[in-house]
């Protein structure tokens, strides 16, 4: 019982972190071009992140 008192909230907090990570990635537009993102890894030739990321 004592274990459950902190283990269960811990589990909830961890999954909430996953939820927040998903919501962030959704808002960041990471699901807009799944095919393109996979290809971009191979072709991206810039040293720094591109300046047009916010598009």
């Amino acid at each position, binding site marked *: 019982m004592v274990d*459950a008192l902190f283990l*269960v*909230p811990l589990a909830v907090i961890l999954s909430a972190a996953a*939820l927040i990570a998903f919501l962030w990635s959704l808002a960041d537009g990471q699901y807009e071009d799944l*095919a*393109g993102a996979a290809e971009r890894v191979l072709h991206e030739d810039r040293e720094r992140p591109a300046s*047009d990321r916010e598009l």
Partner: protein
Amino acid sequence: MSLILDRTGSSAERARDLPFFSRRHTGPGSGLRAELVVPSMHCGACMRRVEKALHALPGVTAARANLSTKRVIVEWSDREVTPAMIETLDRIGFPAHAAELPDRQHDADLKALLRALAVAAFASSNIMLLSFAVWFGADPSTRQYFHLLSGLIALPTVLYSGQVFYRSAWAALRHGRTNMDVPISIGVTLTFGLSLWETALHGRHAYFDAAVSLIFFLLIGRTLDHMMRARARSAVSGIARLASPSATVIETDGRRSDLPLGKVMPGMKLAVAAGQRVPVDACVIEGTSDVDCALVSGESTPIAVSAGQQLQAGVLNLGAPLVLLALRPSSQSFLAEMTRMMEAAESGRGLYRRIADRASALYAPVVHAAAALTLVGWLAIGSDLHQALTTAIAVLIITCPCALGLAVPMVQVVAAGRLFRSGILIKDGSGLERLAEIDTVVFDKTGTLTTGMPELLLYEKGTQDHEANLPLAAGIAAHSNHPYSRAIAASCPRPLAVATECVTEQAGYGLEALIDGAIFRLGRPGWAAPAHAAGSDASVILSRNAEPLESFHFRDRLRPGAEQAIEDLKARGLSVEMLSGDRKSAVADLAARLGIVYHAEATPANKVQRLEELKREGHRVLMVGDGLNDAAALASAHVSMAPASASDVGRTAADLIFLQESLAAIPLAHRIAIRSAQLIRQNFALSIAYNLVAVPVAVGGFLTPLLAAIAMSSSSIIVVLNALRLALTAQPEK
């Protein structure tokens, strides 16, 4: 699957559209932004080439390609000239055209649904884990702790993710209607309320997991439905536009400038080059040419025009440049009139109610009555109010239309995916429901049953003259882009080589070639052989020094698969007819070839009338058409289909669009619609059967949270699996 792009204009013409699609965007270094559709972008390397080529242009500040949607968003700094983006892409082999910027509202809706779905997934997985401990025996203090924790997670979820259903239910109730979301909202709210009450009383049974997983399952269906429509919409707007949103105006000092259509006023002089469409209703003041009225009136043969003749907006200029005098502003042009007629016709169709809503109109009263009877019954046999209320709510929980909510969207999403792979886009699920109900198919002729391109009617082989004359005609015709010339050139595999410098094109008349001192003319009879024109019914004559050598007749070329498609539709028990704006002779000929009933020389209003007439006789009609003149008919029919080559208005009006040339798409779509209607009915039957088993358990007061969870998930999974059968069984059908 390829989008039909061959009917779009030259790169210059597409580039002309660009400024009208670009929007000023806010943010750092505010400039202009536009979206280009690049259908031939297939891999990462293409994407890089497109982005690099655009980046290299002066003024372009950003170019970001999206490989999934085959679009590029380009931003450029604000200056006088628009960068030559479309020309540049053409040069490196990626034909592109400008498109409307994406529909922000729709994107935002999808994101909101995904957020709600993520929250519901988080909550239901956590609550389900906690519930497991409770179901399989936990001591009262642990149970109470888990119930409290579940309630804490469920409260924000019901408030946030449940909004989707509450909003829709409220919107329906406010208009005095019910839909599927009304029983869902009531069910979720009462389940949650009962569980809170039980928790407060330290009770044994709390149904937080049922409330949250119900929202989760239903949101999956809702999100898939939304994504299906988004995909169709982006594919539809990805097809190149046929009508240009701008016009070239010749000002008094002779300068030419491009004006948006809205600013073209009567009395202005307009220049329309060959291959362009007439922007507003206008009258010819200079030049002679041939025009193609196929999209406007359905007439298949090109018409010769000269000074003084009136042209309707949307007519395609085939021959030489024309100077026109605008007669009406764009808002009163033929095109705008068609749009208004279409809207009027569409409002008559708003009466259709989705299957799911019809089902819930029957379902909700029955379920709510059962719950009320349970309450009264338990009170009557002398139990206390708490016992009676929990049992009544348990009935609502077990009957909450989880499977029913998934029954329709799952089938429709799978069907739309099937159609999409066969090159058919469907705008929303209701189109599929309506398509399954049809008993009559009405076809437009030009551009729908036929390709809108003439083909040469060949004579019996063997005549000596014919053998000699056709290669000569084809050699001359190869120098022109007129539809008749192309038909002649295409019908002869080995044309005679005729040097370019020998041939001159007389716009509106034909071609003249000087070969070995003799003048050969290929063109209109009255011009090629004036002395012999009177008795001739030929469309084109080849003459030598004004003496006719050969006459050519043409007919509309059938779309591939037209004959089989019509046979197939007839074999499926549908009656087929043709409704055309073309001349009677042309229509009768084609109708005889296909063996169908026809109505010729129909104006747009006649077409709508004919459809109304069929509706009054109790028929449900599928209208297949492409032109501006069909738009109103497309909107007023029970359900409608258009080819991708249709006019913009036609594409907007149609429920389904087929991207391939072949008409085989129509029987295929009908088959899938019928099949999905069957599966939807099966799913309803499954849900009802499940209720018949589960309701007595709940009414008897034997429902536990464990039973509720098992019943709810298993019925949903069965319904989803049943829907997936559509994807499986469709394969061997090919």
